[in-house]
C-alpha cells in the first residue's frame, strides 16, 4: 500500500480558502513525485458542496467530516478530530496553510499526538526517498533546510503564496464521509463577538504613488523627511507594522497581512526589511524601490530598483532632486 499525503482544507463563508488550494497544489506535486496518494480533508458542518468541489481536483479522495461541533473553528474540537484521523490513518505527511487559524491549531495538534511540526515552509526538495523542507528564519533573512527525524505523520504548514493555485490540476476524487464521535470534547474557549476593524479614514488601495516607511526611520520625529518626500512626489504615506505598533503612524496606514493591500504604480520602501507579512500587502506594485542600509535585506529580492544606503541621506537628496 502506498503512502498517503493529507491536506487540510480550510473554508469560510462557503468558500474554500486560497491558502488551502495552494497546499493542495503542493500536495499534488509531492504525491506525484513520490508516487503517494493524495487526500483532501475537510471539516465542518453542512459542507457537502465544498467537498464535491474538491472532488473535481486531482485527488485520490476527499475525506469529509461533518459535525455540528465543527461548524466553527475551536481548537479543542478541531484538535481532537484531527488527532483521531491522523492516528488512525497514519498518513506520511499532513499539509496545512500557515494561516492564523492553523497557527492556533497546528502546534496543539503536534503536541497532542507527539509528532514533528515544521511551520511556514516555502518549499521542499526531494533527496533520495526523503523530503527536505525549506523554511525562513531570522525575519526572512535566512532560509533553513530541515528534515524530520521523527515518526509520521509529519505536520507541515505552508507559507501563503509559496505555491500558486494556477498549478492546481483537475481530476476526480471520491468523497468519503467519515463520522467521528466528538460529543465528549469539552469546548473551553468561548467565542464572543467578531468584528472588522472599522475601516480607517485612509484608503490606500487606490493610491498611485506610495512612500512607505519602516523601522529604519528609528523614531517619530524623523518622519518629517518622509513627509517631505511624499509631498514632493504627491504620494501617500504608508508604513510597516512596527511603525504603527509604536504609534508613530495610525493603523490605517499599515501595509501587509494584518493591514492594507495596495497596488500602486510606485512603492518606495524606506528602511523596510521586507518580511513576508509586509510583502503580501505590496508585492503587486508596478514598480518597487527599496532604500536600505543592509544589502541582504529581503526587500531587495522583490524590488525593481534598490539603493543600498542610509535613508537619512538618500531621502532628503531625493526630495531635493524631485523639487528641481
Amino acid at each position: 500500500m502506498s503512502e498517503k499525503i493529507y491536506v487540510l482544507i480550510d473554508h469560510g463563508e462557503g468558500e474554500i480558502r486560497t491558502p488551502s488550494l495552494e497546499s493542495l497544489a503542493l500536495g499534488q506535486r509531492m504525491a506525484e513525485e513520490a508516487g503517494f496518494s493524495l487526500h483532501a480533508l475537510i471539516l465542518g458542518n453542512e459542507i457537502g458542496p465544498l467537498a464535491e468541489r474538491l472532488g473535481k481536483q486531482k485527488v485520490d479522495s476527499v475525506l469529509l467530516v461533518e459535525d455540528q461541533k465543527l461548524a466553527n473553528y475551536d481548537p479543542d474540537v478541531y484538535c481532537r478530530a484531527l488527532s483521531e484521523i491522523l492516528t488512525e490513518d497514519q498518513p506520511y505527511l499532513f499539509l496545512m496553510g500557515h494561516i492564523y487559524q492553523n497557527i492556533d491549531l497546528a502546534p496543539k495538534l503536534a503536541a497532542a499526538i507527539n509528532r514533528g511540526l515544521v511551520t511556514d515552509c516555502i518549499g521542499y526538495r526531494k533527496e533520495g526517498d526523503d523530503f527536505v523542507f525549506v523554511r525562513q528564519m531570522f525575519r526572512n533573512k535566512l532560509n533553513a533546510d530541515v528534515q524530520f527525524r521523527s515518526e509520521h505523520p509529519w505536520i507541515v504548514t505552508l507559507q501563503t503564496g509559496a505555491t500558486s493555485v494556477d498549478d492546481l490540476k483537475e481530476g476526480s476524487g471520491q468523497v468519503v464521509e467519515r463520522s467521528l464521535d466528538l460529543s465528549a470534547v469539552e469546548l473551553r474557549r468561548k467565542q464572543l463577538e467578531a468584528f472588522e476593524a472599522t475601516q480607517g479614514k485612509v484608503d490606500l488601495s487606490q493610491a498611485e504613488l506610495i512612500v512607505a516607511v519602516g523601522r529604519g526611520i528609528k523614531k517619530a520625529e524623523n518622519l518629517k523627511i518622509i513627509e517631505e518626500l511624499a509631498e514632493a512626489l504627491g504620494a501617500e504615506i504608508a508604513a510597516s507594522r512596527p511603525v504603527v505598533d509604536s504609534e508613530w503612524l495610525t493603523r490605517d496606514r499599515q501595509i501587509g497581512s494584518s493591514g492594507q493591500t495596495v497596488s500602486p504604480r510606485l512603492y518606495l520602501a524606506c528602511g523596510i526589511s521586507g518580511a513576508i507579512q509586509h510583502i503580501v500587502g505590496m508585492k503587486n506594485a508596478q514598480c518597487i524601490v527599496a532604500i536600505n542600509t543592509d544589502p541582504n535585506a529581503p526587500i531587495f529580492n522583490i524590488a525593481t530598483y534598490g539603493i543600498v544606503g542610509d535613508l537619512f541621506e538618500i531621502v532628503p537628496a531625493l526630495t531635493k532632486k524631485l523639487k528641481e
Partner: protein
Amino acid sequence: MKLLTCLKQIPDRDTRYEINAAGTGIKTSDLTFEISECDEYSLEESLKLREEHGGEVAILTLGPQRAEKSIRKGLAMGADRAILVRDDEGKVTTPHAVAKVLAEVLKEEEYDLILTGTQSDDWSYAQTGVLLAELLGLPHATIVMEIRADPAQKKVKALREMESGWFQWVELPMPAVLTIQAGISQIRYASLKGIMQAKKKEIRNVELSDLNVDLSSIPEIEVLKVYFPVVEKKAEILQGSTAEVVEQLVEKLKKEAKVL
C-alpha cells in the same frame, strides 16, 4: 494575579548575520542580543495586568548565561523575579523541546496566565506558546491584541487578531496561555529606579540537567543547512554617490519604469 511571561533573547535586530562553520546556524560570537519583540510587548502587558489586579510577574527564559542581560532588562521594566533554565550548549533546538522544558519548570510554579510571544524573531517557529499550552493541558488563544482579565471569576477575555482586518473576542477559563502580538500596548522604558532595583531581584538559575525531562521522546527535527536565500529576480542596485544614485533613480522612474 500571578503572571508568567516567557522571554527569549535573540540577536539584535540590525545584526548582519554570518553563517557558522557547520553551516547549520549563525555565528553568535560577535553579536549583541536583545529581547524578542513580541516578548517585550508581552512583558509590558503582564506589568499592566499586575498594575490593574495586583499580584506578581515572573519571567521564564530558556537560554545560555548571556540571557541574564535581557532578563535584567525585564526586571528593570518591573518584573518581580525570573527563572533562567541554563542551556549553555544550545542543546534544546526544536520548539517542541523548548516547550517541554518550560512545561517541566512550570510544574513547580503557580500562575493564572502564561504569556508568550506570537513568534520569535530568530527561529520564527510560531509554535512554542501553543505547544506549551497543550503540554500543560491548558486552553490558549493566539495572536492576542488585548486582554481583559477577571481574576475573581477565573476568566480572561482575549482579543485575537485574524486575517484581513478582523478581530475576535474569546473567553477562556484561567489558568490559560496567551500568545501576544506586537503592538498590544506601548512598551515602557526602564526607569533609573527600576534599573537599580533590578540588580537586587532574583534570577533563579536552573540547570537543564537538574530537570527531569526526557528530550529523546520529543519528535526530532534536524536543521541540515542555513543559508541566504537564492533569488531569481533581484533589484537593479544603483551605484555611486548619493547625488548619483538619486539622479539615476529619478531618471529610471521617469524613462524606464515610466511611473513618474
